[in-house]
């Protein structure tokens, strides 16, 4: 089978980027990290941070920031502290005076984070103008805790993601907790981050699949198609045309309690304007429960390869 891919032009583009980057770097006021007073060597000579902050430093051995700053084979977390907190010499000499050490809090602390993390890791993220862009209300340290991250959570988030997101998105969180038909966020590690990208720029709140589709298909692969006889998805609609992803009071997380009403919302041809898929079902007598259960016959509502009427 012949597969057409974008490989050749894209590879050529990537190859050309190296040269372009070099030239660009010469002209660009590069987004260099703000100067952090890294004094790992000085810190090593002085009394160790861990002499007082014993538990903190011990736990920091497992922190990714330790490995990022340290040389090969060196795993003394004391050496990493200065990279964010600066020279601790005066702080130590003053017997631990908190005013003599740089601490990272709130928005100003986040600016220190961005000194290294300014370049977002992909094309869809933006710390500049995303809904979670760095502001007084939401900044790096609102969600991330460098020293006290939640256990088993990635990226040093302060609380388990479901709890963390729910601390601002209260209505969505309550919907997941209370409604009877939901994605079970409290089971098997499923979290908001399976579908949502917290660093995304405006207008792109969901994580798309590698194929640029709704994240639903990462799990529900059998709904992807393509189908000979498409229905909704792939022909102008999305999963959310019929389903409620944040929890529903209706079976199968549908928008309507009665399936026939959901189907007839579209399939009810009325006078202009002409709308897509609006042909009405013939002779179906809704007074009979047989016909009110549309999917009893039209089982392949997500698309079919063998039945024009989605019967199998």
């Amino acid at each position, binding site marked *: 089978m012949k597969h057409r891919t974008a490989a050749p032009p894209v590879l050529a583009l990537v190859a050309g980027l190296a040269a372009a980057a070099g030239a660009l770097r010469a002209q660009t006021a590069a987004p260099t990290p703000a100067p952090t007073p890294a004094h790992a060597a000085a810190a090593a000579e002085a009394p160790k941070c861990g002499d007082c902050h014993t538990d903190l430093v011990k736990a920091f051995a497992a922190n990714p920031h330790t490995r990022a700053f340290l040389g090969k084979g060196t795993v003394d977390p004391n050496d990493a502290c200065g990279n964010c907190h600066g020279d601790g010499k005066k702080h130590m000499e003053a017997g631990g005076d908190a005013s003599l050490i740089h601490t990272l809090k709130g928005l100003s602390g986040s600016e220190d984070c961005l000194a290294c993390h300014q370049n977002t890791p992909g094309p869809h993220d933006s710390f*500049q103008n995303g809904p979670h862009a760095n502001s007084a209300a939401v900044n790096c340290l609102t969600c991330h805790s460098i020293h006290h991250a939640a256990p088993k959570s990635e990226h040093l988030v302060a609380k388990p993601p479901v709890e963390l997101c729910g601390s601002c998105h209260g209505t969505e969180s309550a919907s997941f907790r209370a409604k009877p038909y939901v994605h079970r966020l409290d089971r*098997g590690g499923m979290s908001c981050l399976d579908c949502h990208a917290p660093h995304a720029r405006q207008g792109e709140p969901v994580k798309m699949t590698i194929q640029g589709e709704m994240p639903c298909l990462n799990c529900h692969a059998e709904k992807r198609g393509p189908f000979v006889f498409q229905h909704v998805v792939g022909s102008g609609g999305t999963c959310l045309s019929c389903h409620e992803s944040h929890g529903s*009071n209706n079976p199968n997380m549908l928008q309507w309690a009665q399936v026939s009403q959901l189907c007839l919302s579209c399939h009810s041809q009325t006078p202009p304007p002409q709308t897509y898929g609006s042909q009405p079902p013939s002779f179906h007598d809704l007074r009979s429960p047989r016909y009110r259960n549309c*999917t009893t016959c039209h089982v392949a509502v997500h698309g079919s*390869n063998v039945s024009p009427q989605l019967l199998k």
Partner: protein
Amino acid sequence: MRPALRRALASAALVAAAGAARLSAQAIPVDVELGYRFVDVSGNDQMYRTQINDRPGVLLRSLDYTSLGPIGFLDTLHVDATDVGAGPAGQLRLLAARTGVFRLTFTWRETDLYSALPAFANPFIDDGIVPGQQTWNRIRNIYDAELELLPGKILTPILGYTRNTYDGPGSTTYHLGQNEFQLDDQVHSVDSLYKIGLVFNDGPVQAGFTQGWREYSWQDVSVLRPGAGSGNVTTPIVGQVVTASSIATTQKSEIDTPVSNAWVTANLFGRVKLTGTYIKADGTNDTGFAEADAGKFVSFELARIFSGLTENVDSRAHTDYWRGSARAEVTLLPNVSLAGGWAENSRVLDGQALISSLFLDTVTYAGQSAGDLLREINAQTSVEDTTRTYDANVTARQLGPVAVNAGWTQVQQNVTATPDASEIVIPGGQGGRYERRINTFGGGATFSQWGLTLTADYHHDSADQPIFRTDFIDRDRLSVRGLYNIADFLKVGAYFRDTKASDDVVTIGYDTEVREFQGEFDVTLVKNTLTLHGAGGEFLTNRSILIREPQDFTIVPTEQKELGHNWEGGARFTWKDLTFDAAYLWMNNDGSIPFTVQRIRAVAEYFFTRNLGLDFEWLQDKYDERVAFDQAGPLANYNGNRYYVGIHWRP
């Protein structure tokens, strides 16, 4: 992973943990919670499984291991697991890395999917027969592995593999000969994605390219359920009682989809960030279907009675899909940025199905034998779906305690559909070209100072015309949020969201409002000892639209109404080595499906040594549905109690 294997693994982990507990003095960066869950359900057990599905058995509730130093070649090793064993969903993750050399991530996630809804696909709900006729009891396993080589260097090659399997039995229905029959079916599907990529990172310029190959296979084997030969319709149709003595279908699909994914970003002069993305994914689906049925059937289409059907279908669907975007973000002033971009995606579908149906021993309504009848359909379909988006927005992130943003988006949607004649029973709206343009204006502001955070967002969407009947012409979205924190003592939050969408065209009359409100508090009465929390709010949904009743083509309004209220409260108490956490939730919904949900969670943990604790958990989920049109009412009700007893080891 098979249940037996899961149980064996969980049991082995239990034994290992118990042995390891004796080594409690040894400092190992591991945290394990392992135990057994008992389940007691009264009422509709199948509804409990549909909504909750916590199963009895050994449960590895939690495992966490993080290396504190190098382990051989690795300088990072992290393993964690959640809810492995009794189900219904478990996860295992592994991260192994050596800084600057490689980074390997692996995730396994398993989900038990169970559905036996009482009223869904159930024409006999009024007779008290449950569950409905479409059920499943399947398992989804997703394995995902990714290897980055030279992470953080200028060039980082990436290799990845994802496997998503979906297997298990179920029941479905099949409309044949003017009757519906319940079938037992067995599904097996595998979705595999292999990918290889390269990320380029040289300061101001970053780029990535990934080439993936997706292979998907689906097999569904269905046979007439024993005892279901009478079907749902037992009254004669044109004088014939329609019955089936055998129905057997097999459907196999193979889909190949190569995926190319590329992106590039460039930071210019510290003020401009340019981003481009491109995705190409062309999928081809080859399907074969075979069916053999016997019985007494009626076809209105053929105006005949027949005693068997042999059908074969060979079909191919091909989609050409691409998505591209270009975007610029410009920093006008410190913390003030302007962004704008274009994005477009296009999907062109071509489908063809050769449907060969042999109706056996046909007889006219008048009783004349007409022999076998062969019908051949060569169905051809096509759909072109293109969406183009332009947007521009300005963001001022740090005006003291205030941040504001405002923006405009225009979405242009074009759908051209050419259905096959065999799809059309009654003409109207199935084919043609449909266009729609939506303009969105909106913005938001946040204020954060003195522990108080206020946020408000408002967007107005205006469309020129609908494509589907449920597309809005006007939509307003409002979100308001307030949070107040007093040190570590008190947190109070209030959240409000309201979406109103409508199409006032007199023959459609579409109107929807979804309104949600929540208030919550969290108060620490004794620091590190006693915390109380509570929440409450309202969920409101009002949907209405005119529909055409198909039995007489009259146009009538139809409504979906939901009015839910929830109240929650709980306490967390910690004293020395004892932790107690309890919460109660109550939700009542009135409207199309009236019900009450009550949930109780009570957890106690006591560490009787420094490293070893005992865990007890009681969960109760109670669902009470009240009588409503076409719903299950009390037939759906259940009371599910789970009791978990386990050990918690944290050396």
